[in-house]
């Protein structure tokens, strides 16, 4: 019993390590009302980390409702991708700031 529990714990650790080794953090910047890069490729499980370098409030708002991340001036915020597909997003406060993430399974 004890041994089985220990095995399960080790297996869980292995799985977690495997997952975190595969998952990447992808940086996207918002500066002078531009999102760079405007098109990003990622995988499910990856973390998108947006950095707002402006003095203005921005957001990363997915058109399909997948995420809505608020980015206060000079701050960083992130989101872990959960679904595959192409997600177009924009800034709620500056709708001409637009970008796309292509999420592979």
């Amino acid at each position, binding site marked *: 019993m004890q041994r089985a529990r220990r095995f399960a714990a080790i297996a869980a650790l292995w799985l977690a390590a495997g997952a975190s080794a595969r998952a990447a953090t992808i940086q996207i910047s918002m500066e*002078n009302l*531009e999102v760079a890069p405007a098109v990003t490729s990622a995988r499910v499980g990856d973390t998108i980390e947006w950095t707002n370098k402006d003095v*203005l409030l921005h957001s990363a708002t997915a058109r399909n409702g997948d995420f809505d991340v608020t980015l206060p001036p000079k701050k960083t915020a992130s989101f872990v991708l959960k679904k595959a597909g192409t997600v177009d997003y924009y800034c709620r406060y500056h*709708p001409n700031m637009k970008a796309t993430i292509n999420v592979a399974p």
Partner: protein
Amino acid sequence: MYVRISAAIAAICFSSGMAMAEGAKLTDPQIAHIAYTAGEIDIKAAKQALDKASSKDVKQFAQDMVRDHEAVNKQALDLVKKLKVTPEDNETSKALSRQAADKLAELGKLKGAAFDKAYVANEVAYHKTVDGALETQLIPSASNSELKGLLQTGLKIFQGHEQHAEHVAAELK
């Protein structure tokens, strides 16, 4: 070249009704004052709109204007303090303020959808005017590189606002 630039400036001043002091090169203290005034004007217009607008999109837009222009003007104040520059009132600032006061009074008489339309139309025109002034006069005249940089950021923001205003205007129709 010189003739072409002054002709372009003249055309912008003429078409927008923005009175620029002829021939005189603007100094950094004057440029800072004009840029700050331009922001203040848009904040005042937006506060009137928050009070009077009926459309949700127009109110949202006005809120965005207040937030952005306050942020940029705060940055401008920080910069002039750091550079030990005292913004200096001038003919262009005065003309801008005078026109803005007239516009505020004119819009003040309107109500409902008529106000919404007139406010957004003026926002498109106003941001266009300021973009033109920034591009052709304020940015080229600025001698301090940090001030120039701030004006360039300001231009980006104003251009974004202009497009946003155009989008809102199109939705209202």
